[in-house]
């Protein structure tokens, strides 16, 4: 069936660099049935409807007959984290985590990290000095989110390298096509990470500090997380916030280098960074497909009935290029008035870490734009990671003429003060 092929071609690594024409083809069948009985939804309105449809479950489906187990972001032996749960359990766990991360109880926490994140960004770019070529992914985008999440959780600086290694091993397996060797690495890394977090939690219980983990272990709120739930949650924050942020920064740099006028404007008007980021989340989103859903009941949508029990893939990146929703969708235009994108998903699973991701990316992109002198792409397109769901460059080599000195100006301006 020709229809089935489109989605297989999208999954094919050969098309990773530019899946967008294939998404256009995919959208011709807004709700498409695949050979294996799964469904792919690709138009904006239909996806928004399903993200807010209580007949959709996020609980991990059983692997299809004879298929390989889908990527697993949870740690071995621990209960699934809230990204893979449904209300009311999802809501309870998310609420308990949010108590120490955002409103209503901790509204200032993320903004309070601005300075620290800014310093990390500065330090990473300082290290470019004396070179004329770097890999933005390995030298910058990859380390940044791990450092930030370590700070948030309260992982001591000296443990960061170990943390990073575990994180990489876990992230690798988010790919639906990961093989057995990868799976073994994941289990090993997961076991170590779990033991590490468990010990750290014990330490914070004895001697709390002002980090998120301390807050979670000492929380006396009603319905407090069990230790196992807490470990799952901490691992989720690490995994869900890692490669996604890497991709946004790398996709962002790539897109700006492909649109030099925009890069130039960003350099002159650092305040534009928010508009740039929101447009990036629409135009080159890190998450092309969130974790697969399951229909709890028959669902009629766009003239098709998705039967109870069917697995549903939501092609967020296709929806964000839907001409029925965004005029001239294939144009990168930070000035567009209407940027109601799905880059962070929607509904109850809307990205928990979005404010932190935005903060990191604001500082990262505005500082890269300001400090790199005459940056150029070495290869276009760059090599891409295997993963079609979390899509981004494996490397992003750039050349430049020099690195402007660090000031706190970029940070101050981005702060609006």
């Amino acid at each position, binding site marked *: 069936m020709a229809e089935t092929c489109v989605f297989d071609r999208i999954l094919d690594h050969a098309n990773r660099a530019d899946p967008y024409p294939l998404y256009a083809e995919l959208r011709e069948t807004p709700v498409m049935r695949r050979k294996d009985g799964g469904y792919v939804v690709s138009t904006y309105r239909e996806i928004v409807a399903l993200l807010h449809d209580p007949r959709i479950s996020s609980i991990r489906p059983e692997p299809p007959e004879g298929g390989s187990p889908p990527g697993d972001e949870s740690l071995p032996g621990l209960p699934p984290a809230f990204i893979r749960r449904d*209300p009311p359990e999802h809501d309870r766990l998310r609420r308990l985590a949010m108590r120490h991360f955002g409103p*209503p109880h901790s509204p200032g926490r993320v903004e309070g990290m601005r300075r620290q994140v800014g310093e990390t960004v500065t330090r990473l770019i300082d290290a470019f000095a004396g070179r004329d070529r770097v890999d933005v992914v390995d030298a910058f985008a990859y380390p940044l989110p791990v450092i930030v999440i370590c700070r948030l959780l309260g992982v001591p600086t000296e443990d960061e390298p170990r943390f990073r290694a575990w994180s990489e091993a876990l992230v690798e397996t988010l790919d639906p096509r990961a093989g057995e060797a990868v799976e073994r690495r994941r289990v090993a890394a997961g076991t170590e990470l779990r033991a590490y977090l468990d010990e750290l939690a014990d330490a914070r219980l004895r001697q709390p500090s002002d980090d998120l983990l301390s807050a979670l272990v000492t929380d006396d709120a009603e319905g407090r997380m069990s230790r196992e739930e807490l470990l799952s949650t901490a691992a989720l924050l690490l995994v869900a916030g890692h490669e996604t942020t890497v991709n946004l920064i790398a996709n962002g740099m790539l897109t700006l280098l492909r649109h030099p006028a925009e890069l130039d404007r960003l350099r002159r008007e650092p305040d534009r960074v*928010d508009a740039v980021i929101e447009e990036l989340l629409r135009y080159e989103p890190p998450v092309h497909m969130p974790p697969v859903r399951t229909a709890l009941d028959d669902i009629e949508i766009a003239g098709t009935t998705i039967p109870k029990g069917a697995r549903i893939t939501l092609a967020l990146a296709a929806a964000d290029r839907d001409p029925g929703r965004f005029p001239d969708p294939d144009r990168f235009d930070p000035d567009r008035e209407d940027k*109601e994108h799905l880059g962070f998903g929607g509904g109850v699973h809307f990205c928990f870490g979005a404010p932190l991701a935005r903060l990191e990316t604001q500082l990262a992109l505005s500082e890269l734009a300001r400090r790199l002198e005459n940056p150029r792409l070495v290869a276009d397109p760059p090599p891409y990671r295997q993963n079609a769901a979390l899509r981004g460059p494996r490397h992003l080599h750039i050349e430049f003429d020099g690195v402007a000195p660090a000031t706190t100006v970029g940070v101050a301006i981005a702060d609006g003060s």
Partner: protein
Amino acid sequence: MRVVVDLTRCQGYGQCVFAAPDVFTMHGQEALLYDPDPSDEQRARVLRAKAACPVQAIHIDRFAARAAGRGPQVYPDAGDGFKRNGRIVIVGASLAGLRAAMVLRREGFAGSLTLIGDETHEPYDRPPLSKQVLAGQVPVEHTMLPRLAELDAEWLLGQRATGLDLTGKRVRLADGREIGFDRLLIATGVRARPWPNEAEAALDGVYVLRTIEDAIRLRARLAAGTGRVLVIGGGFAGSEVASVCRELDRPVTVAERGPVPLFGALGRVIGAIAGEMQREHGVDLRCDTTVTALEGDAEGRLRAARLSDGATLEVDMAVVALGAVRNVDWLEGAGLAAGVWGVGCDAGCRVFDINGVVTDDIFAAGDIARFPHPSYEYQFLALEHWGNAVAQAEIAAHNMVSDQTRRWAHLALPVFWSSQFGVNIKSVGVPTFADGVVITQGSVAERRFVAAYGYRGRITAAVTFDQAMWLEFYQRLIEQAAPFPPDFAMVGRPAVMEPVPAEVPPRVAVAQGATVVVTGHDPGERRAILVRRPE
């Protein structure tokens, strides 16, 4: 800078709070409160909040954004030159009037535009008055709506319209002036229903809450004292006032004629839950109870209230929250279908004349309008909802400058929100259009749930308590006339899902109490005449 959040769209994602925690705050899990006029040093943060809102509900300094996905909007002139040379007058310079004016300009109306309003302020936003303003979190001057300076229009503020001459196409003002128009928009809204006993209403300590002046007085008195507050009427306004009283740690009694608070809007079943919330927060809630008299001391200060349950309460203040009276007085004798029920119009906002014939050049929008809704058996609805004023004003404005082939119909389902006792209550549809109600998601005990309402086997409304993200789903079910009770397997479904009788107040006939006499014999001369009865 001026900020308006379209709270009918807001789903409580809190992204704005992260970005600008000094401007936006979450009251409980998802009831968003904000400062509508933050200082300029917050500008960068507020712009960031606007960019980050996942449903793009935040408007800054402008208020005429186009509904997403609507096609090309600026149609050419109908050929009569009206768009270039026409004269439009809007009476009522508040939410609906301002919004209509902005949409008219957006749609390319370049003729003369006059707004007449009897309040002296620029247009302001009322919902904060019973929430963050009353609680003292935001000064009352911060409620001004964005931004009349940018709007090319003539403003006649502090001027009351006193009459309408339909044939001569003129609006009469209190000072005797007459303003001519080609097309007119009636957006005079409602006013607070006063305490019926005039002498008692005049006692020092008796308040209503509709305008900025009301809010200033009420806030000052609330901040100054510690004594008991009596709230007369447990509708949305009364409940929000009671909520703020408790937040300020004032003892408060709510007297409600019905069996539960919010009875008139949500019926008995869901109202009972709101009642439990009130009691949990220390409100002395008295249902099936009316206030029979207010008593003053020798200086004319309110001292006590007598209740129908026999009690006499010592009170400092009384807030009269008995609903609204439509501002139709100025239309008396004008020949329009205007009365205590509001101003009748069609779904395109064109006003009916007194005979029930639709006019071409007179339009109505907002709290004043009463219009038929196909989803509710074409019954006429009169809604006192922020979102309705905004949506209907857009339809009215569009139709005022469009020929009949391009008119739009106001078919939006009613959406309402209220923030009380730290809970965000939202509704879609018409909850009183119901014979049954059922909790479909969440937990009543946790005050986080969705209730669906149905009438004769189809869904007609839904109400959420701190579950706004699901509202859209129910909106679609209502639009599709889906069966009631809904019986899906879904997340968060309670163990038992048994519909119970809705117990909504009896539906009052639209124009109950209107006495109309029809005269004449020839079809060409038959006329309806509205007979006024003493209220």
